[in-house]
């Protein structure tokens, strides 16, 4: 009898949870503290199709520096066409003060990185995605396939151009992103805006020699847009839309090393249709 009573109490406690949502039901739009600037006219013939290489990594992952070297090599070959981003996530990105020769006390994991890791089911490191496109029905793959998969993409004219303006406004930054369609995009598209940081000196395990002063580049720091991107209403050629954001910069991040990455993606497939990068400060 006592057991039944106990179980009943446990069950009642479980079901008692009910979330009553009050208005407004929609996630509130970011209030931007700066006026929307005038964007220069987009020269559509000068727009090039760009790709984003997302490198899922961790500072205690011994094979990850190898992947980063491959990414840098690809960037050297592709130039502005390829943008890099390192997403630290998973158990090998956990901070650990005294693990061997170096102290891995820094934590580069982020909410947005964790969300991507879960969403794209990243379980082994290093793993990457190229503009979240599928190659042989795989969206994620090891560093050995990065270059060949990137080279296998048929080069087509870009279907959108992205312009970014960054304004430093006392303690915070205002970011404006203008998306202009160069062809019709019938699919529902969303805008992702991320902040990455270069030149972070912090330990990194390496299969050859661990480095206590490894230079981490392109490290994902935060999402400036909503965590799953913001809805865009453009769909026809020449449609354009400006989204604005403002955010305070974390004191630990060096603004001169930070970049903004803005990308539009198909909300059904997550494939990135265009991506652009801008230094946070001039």
């Amino acid at each position, binding site marked *: 009898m006592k057991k039944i009573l106990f179980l*009943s109490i446990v*069950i009642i406690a479980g079901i008692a949870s*009910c*979330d009553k949502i009050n208005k407004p*039901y929609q*996630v509130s739009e970011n209030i931007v503290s700066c006026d929307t600037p005038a964007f220069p006219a987009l020269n559509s013939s000068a727009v090039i199709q760009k790709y984003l290489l997302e490198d899922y990594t961790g500072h205690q992952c011994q094979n990850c520096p190898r992947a980063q070297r491959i990414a840098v090599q690809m960037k050297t070959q592709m130039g502005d066409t390829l943008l890099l981003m390192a997403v630290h996530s998973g158990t090998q990105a956990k901070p650990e003060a005294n693990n061997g020769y170096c102290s891995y006390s820094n934590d580069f994991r982020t909410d947005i990185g964790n969300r991507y890791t879960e969403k794209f089911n990243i379980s082994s490191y290093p793993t990457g995605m190229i503009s979240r496109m599928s190659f042989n029905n795989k969206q994620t793959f090891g560093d050995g396939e990065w270059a060949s998969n990137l080279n296998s993409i048929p080069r087509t004219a870009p279907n959108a151009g992205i312009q970014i303006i960054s304004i430093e406004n006392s303690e915070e930054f205002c970011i404006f992103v203008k998306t202009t369609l160069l062809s019709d995009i019938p699919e529902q598209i969303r805008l992702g805006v991320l902040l990455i940081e270069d030149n972070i000196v912090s330990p990194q395990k390496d299969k050859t020699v661990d480095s206590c002063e490894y230079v981490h580049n392109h490290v994902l720091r935060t999402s400036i847009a909503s965590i799953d991107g913001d809805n865009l209403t453009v769909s026809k050629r020449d449609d354009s839309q400006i989204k604005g954001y403002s955010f305070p910069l974390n004191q630990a991040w060096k603004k001169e090393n930070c970049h903004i990455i803005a990308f539009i993606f198909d909300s059904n497939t997550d494939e990135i249709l265009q991506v652009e990068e801008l230094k946070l400060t001039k």
Partner: protein
Amino acid sequence: MKKKFILLGLFISCGTLLIAQNNFMKNSRVSGNFQLDAQYYIPDAAMGANTIRDKIRANAFANINYTNGGFSAGLRYEFYQFPLIDFEKIHYIGHGIPHYYIGYNHEYFEVTVGSFYEQFGNGLIYRSYENRNLGYDNATYGIRVKGKPYKGIVITGIWGMQRNLFVKEGQIRGIDGDISFSEMFSKLSDNSVTLGIGGSFLSKFEVDNDPDYNLPENVAAFATRLNFGYKDFNLNAEYAYKFNDPLVKLNDMIYKPGEALVVTASYAMKGLGIYLTGLRTDNMDFRTVRTAEANNNIINYIPTLTREHTYALPAMFPYASQAQGQIGFQAQVNYQIKKRSKIGGKYGTDIMVNYSQIHGIKQNPVEEAVNAGGDMTGTDGYTSPFFGIGKLLFQDFNIEISRKFNSTWKLGLGYVFLLYNQDVIEGHIGQPNVLSHTAIADLTCQINNKHALRLELQHLYSKQNKGIWSSRNWLYGQLEYSISPKWFISVLDRWNYGNIDKTKRIHYYSVSGSFVYGTTKITLSFGKQYEGILCVGGVCRAVPASYGAGLSIVSSF
């Protein structure tokens, strides 16, 4: 000496163990059943039966149950890897052991772990059940505890996930309490009074990953019910309420709460039975997954009000219960004209009259929705006066008279009028309501104790089309011959002779024969299956057209 004592001890222990094991085995009972439904498909473009490249498909499953005193365990293996095309259409594809459980039943409590089927009240907020013909199985995986602390009181708690096709999804937890005062107090039952009340709560959990809306991660629903009976009269009522639960594909992501009310009253005496039921549902689609559609991830059950016709032609127009909004009633009177009377004849005459009418509910969009050009997404949706009636969805008037003339002949006659809103019920958008009149004759000749012949004739008259494969008038004839208890042979033809497209005036014929041996029944059939809709208890699925030979084996042990 010490060794001898040890050996003696071991011998006694083993003996005791053997006796216990023997008793244990004596109480053991293993039961189960097996079913195979196989079909060989022949393409027939004229009737819309597509080419099936692998030609043969089958559904098979087997249940094995073990009981020993209060202990029970069981499992079901399902092989739907290459399923009948009906099931392929609803993505019921896979194989494995999706159903397994262990339970213990005691005088005061009952525990089940694994998969189980359960229902709170009428099921308005929770019902897990299976129907093999529909390809429907929303078993709960988890734990169920039933407590029976006092005579007439039953408390049931459940916690688990939900079966959706071959995967487990969602998180649900709930509790139900049932109090039967007539069991508690014998004075009530002594005075022919039955009185009981009940209440239930259920909550589901789903992570909010939506970037645009703040969604409730925990959605709860509750229901209360009453059962009252006095002598031949019985009344049953249940009211359910569901808190805000925006669903992507089923309610336009509105935050309006849902509610449902079902009231049933019946009166029965010798030769007369009266049955009345009323139902109103408003935004009561309850799913474990917000993006669910069709028959997937359903937590609750909204009963249908309408008669499920067993005769083939009126059964082409079944009503699919509209959890999102419906209001209606059903009334039925069964009367038997006295035996050995002038009108009733030697064996009496049975008359059944049934009527049901169902409307959508009236919806007044909220201001935000009006301002958005009627788009309710992300608003409170609409308000609806409780008795506000919307467009007519379904209307059914039917009468059946059956009479046994002598020990050989029995005749049943029937008439069915149906109004069928195919736009809402089947999604044939913009198509007009179908109005149909069906006449039925059902003649049985009981040749002797073993042999019987049955003839069924039906004619359906209509001026409308339903979808593309049904148009206007139909004729149906079926002849059955049975040699009890082992043999059964049937020949039937369903002919859409009135189809305005002459190429679609198809004979959907079928020949079948069954043989029963002990607890095993084997059926062979050959013929054409009309593309339509199959409903059981208001839950429906589309049935594709098919042509070919079928084999069915049903066995139990």
